[in-house]
């Protein structure tokens, strides 16, 4: 793509687009979606489905909009009679062997064959009295089923595995109308990014076993979020049905994950649906914890913190939002604080065809945010501090047997903010907090891109975001106190202390975030 602009007219709209832009992308800028199947902006274009044929004035025949690039003075007709007739012809042919089993197909409702047929297909088939092609369902891999009868041979899956994953385990087998997507007997579709073929499939031919018959697409609520799986920060949609997360799918962000997420991230959602949650603030009453209301609990935290002397320790989950990490840290101002986040480690799994995209070793989505806020990485030494600290705050950190023992022996005051009930009998308080799926917030990824995630489901019981608790404590009691009531307000408080965040609002981040390395205007003079 060059900087040079060329002038084109698409369905009467005049636009200037960079030289080299395919017509299909130029049309998007004119607000026109040229129907297509094989084209995908993150894959090489084979121009085989022939669905995106458009009329280009002076061209001898209809041209595929996916591989025909714009030219100066070009006049394109996406919806001319000849183009529409060609598309109707393709749709008719794609449907002759299609089983039309939409009522039992997972893709129904988000199926491009359904959509375009509804939009501009023939009302009835002329393929009568012939048997349809039939091939049995095949098990391709850990999470992928292939339903060949629904396949339209767009080859997106084959190209993804070959050109993006660089692991060609899928092929087109046979030829003519006998062709199907094949796999070798000795191979499985088990690449760490293989699940993307399900999203790429424009019809219901490649299905996720995990999502199989779970929900109808039109019953799903979609929430823009950021993957909590690792430091890559892939953009995702969390799909819920009746407040239950049923599926995670990639949300395009050309700077971070293009159109893809890894299978680890895709499957990393069951914890969001757990029912065994802490639902009310619990305060210690002798040898046991009793439920109380937030006013009582907040009063007690305030008093407790004010009574602490010496050092404090914060041990936080790597999945904690920037807002919560920041405000909890601010809440302890005045104390000598050792703060750390937990960073579980796993295997790195890059996606070969997209430089800079990988499932990262560090499975802590907000590691970079935590570091910017002065948190270290917990390598166990944090727990040595526990033995001498006046206050220990556990911010949804996972407690293994050693941590539990250390915590039980802690001489200081222990406050646990938790989603799940911890083993912490000596905790002064156990306060219910929300998971990232239940709150708004931000994560900073490994490239220091700060990105928003939004609340995908309701919080259980009285659970609140950790930033809300810290904000209330910071504001103190009384009618004049001004605690932040939204994540955006909580975020606004960070800039005063950490200038990298100054001058940025949640609104500025949009749906794709921004890099923190760009110093926002006015920063520097604040300090």
């Amino acid at each position, binding site marked *: 793509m060059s900087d040079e602009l060329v002038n084109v007219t698409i369905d009467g709209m005049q636009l200037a687009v960079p030289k080299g832009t395919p017509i299909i992308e130029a049309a998007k800028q004119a607000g026109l979606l040229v129907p297509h199947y094989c084209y995908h902006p993150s894959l090489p274009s084979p121009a085989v489905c022939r669905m995106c044929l458009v009329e280009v004035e002076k061209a001898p025949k209809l041209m595929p909009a996916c591989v025909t690039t714009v030219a100066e003075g070009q006049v394109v007709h996406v919806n001319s009679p000849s183009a529409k007739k060609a598309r109707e012809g393709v749709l008719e042919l794609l449907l002759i062997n299609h089983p039309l089993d939409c009522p039992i197909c997972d893709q129904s409702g988000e199926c491009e064959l359904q959509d375009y047929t509804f939009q501009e297909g023939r009302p009835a088939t002329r393929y009568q009295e012939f048997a349809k092609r039939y091939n049995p369902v095949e098990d391709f891999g850990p999470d992928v089923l292939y339903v060949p009868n629904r396949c339209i041979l767009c080859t997106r899956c084959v190209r993804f595995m070959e050109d993006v994953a660089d692991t060609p385990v899928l092929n087109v087998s046979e030829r003519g109308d006998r062709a199907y997507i*094949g796999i*070798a007997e000795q191979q499985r579709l088990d690449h760490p990014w293989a699940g993307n073929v399900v999203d790429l499939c424009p019809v219901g031919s490649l299905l996720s076993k995990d999502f199989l018959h779970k929900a109808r697409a039109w019953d799903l609520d979609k929430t823009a979020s950021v993957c909590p799986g690792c430091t890559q920060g892939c953009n995702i949609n969390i799909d819920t049905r009746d407040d239950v997360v049923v599926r995670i799918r990639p949300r395009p962000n050309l700077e971070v994950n293009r159109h893809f997420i890894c299978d680890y991230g895709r499957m990393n959602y069951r914890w969001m649906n757990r029912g065994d949650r802490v639902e009310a603030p619990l305060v210690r009453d002798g040898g046991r914890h009793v439920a109380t209301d937030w006013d009582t609990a907040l009063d007690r935290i305030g008093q407790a913190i004010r009574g602490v002397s010496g050092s404090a320790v914060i041990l936080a989950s790597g999945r904690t939002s920037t807002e919560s990490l920041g405000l909890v840290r601010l809440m302890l101002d005045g104390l000598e604080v050792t703060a750390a986040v937990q960073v579980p480690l796993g295997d790195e799994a890059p996606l070969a065809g997209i430089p800079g995209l990988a499932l990262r070793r560090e499975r802590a989505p907000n590691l970079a945010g935590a570091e910017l806020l002065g948190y270290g990485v917990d390598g166990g030494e944090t727990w040595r501090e526990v033995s001498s600290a006046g206050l220990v705050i556990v911010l949804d950190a996972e407690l293994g047997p050693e941590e539990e023992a250390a915590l039980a022996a802690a001489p200081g005051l222990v406050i646990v903010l938790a989603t799940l009930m911890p083993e912490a009998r000596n905790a002064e308080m156990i306060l219910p907090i929300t998971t990232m799926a239940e709150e708004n917030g931000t994560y900073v990824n490994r490239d220091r891109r700060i990105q928003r995630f939004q609340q995908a489901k309701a919080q259980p019981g009285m659970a609140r975001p950790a930033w809300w608790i810290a904000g209330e404590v910071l504001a103190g009691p009384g009618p004049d106190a001004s605690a932040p009531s939204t994540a955006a307000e909580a975020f606004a408080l960070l800039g005063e202390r950490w200038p990298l965040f100054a001058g940025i609002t949640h609104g500025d981040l949009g749906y794709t975030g921004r890099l923190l390395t760009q110093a926002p205007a006015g920063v520097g003079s604040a300090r």
Partner: protein
Amino acid sequence: MSGSHGGTAGHGTAPAEEHIPVFTGPTRARLEQLFTKYPTRQACLLPALWMVQEARGWISEQAIGEVADVLELTPAYVKGVVTFYTMYHTHPVGRHFVQVCTTSPCNICGAEDVVKALLQETGCGELGATSPDGRFTVIEVECLGACGFPTPILVDDDFIENVTPEKVRGIVQRYQ
């Protein structure tokens, strides 16, 4: 998915024998020589598959694996290529493989009668099936490119022109 896609009918599951590598000794040397003729190893795929078929008579899943290995490809990739070309056998065939052209130019000159005669004389009975004695497999093929000499047939590598039903018995007897 075998069996559900056109191609050769009448074969059961391929025998699961242990695969003895094809590309050893002189065959390997021939392949190495081929590598010098092409800028990529992948380009040697069709020749390599021919070598497998010459050696084994057909191309098994294990052979696909071996070819993938020596050419630094994946088995699935190789399989996609194998199934594109109709001359590669993905199932065992008879000792003698008979291909009869029945495309229009031969068709109008009586090719279908030649097919019938061949199916009968060889004992194959139906297209794609192997005769009970294991001697023959007969298939119809599209244009063999000898339309002026109808009907041409290919028995293994022998290209025989002007075959008529009357000549079939004599031809069949030449192949044991």
